[in-house]
């Protein structure tokens, strides 16, 4: 059991190290393009959910 846990911990450390090596290319403009397209749908849902949880 302890050997298995040791192995899992080692694998977790290795995965963390590998993730650090990966440098993803982030598109910083995507969020700003998406938000105006979904804003009205999200606000519509928010209004509906507010009424459902809290009433008027």
């Amino acid at each position, binding site marked *: 059991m302890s050997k298995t846990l040791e192995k899992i911990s080692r694998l977790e450390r290795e995965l963390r190290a590998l993730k650090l090596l990966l440098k993803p290319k982030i598109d910083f403009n*995507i969020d700003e393009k998406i938000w105006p397209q979904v804003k009205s*749908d999200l606000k519509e849902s928010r209004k509906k959910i507010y009424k459902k*949880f*809290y009433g008027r």
Partner: protein
Amino acid sequence: MEDKRSTLVSSKVIGLRKVLVDSSVIISALISNSGASYYCLISAKDKGYQLVISEFILKELLDVIERKFPNLLLRLFEILILGEVLVVKNPSKKELKSFKNLIEKKDVPILASVIKEKAELFLTLDKEFLKQEVIDFASQHGLTILTPKDLIKKLNF
């Protein structure tokens, strides 16, 4: 058995800094996996942050996705699992009162959840939460409101 499990979960959360995530960020991450929102959601745990949403936000996400993006429903669950997102209870109606003059009524449960959960960060794309008076109010409660892009660029996430 249940007690032990909840203790384990709590202690895991205690060591991490809480970040409440707005629906706007999760929807953006669902639509594109090359943006800052997606990156923040999948990297948070490794950077020492616990992602949190409220029942209200979850319900809202399900509603938008079922109505507008039904093909993204499975993806939503994938992202929630990948990001190990914790779902917390909604604030009570009484807890909403102190925020009512600050932002629109329908946005109040989101801000109230962030304060109630003592989150350190609130990630959003919604400009309503990024107004100076809201940011100032939040900072009085030890909370920083910012976009995923700012989290990566300013806080070196």
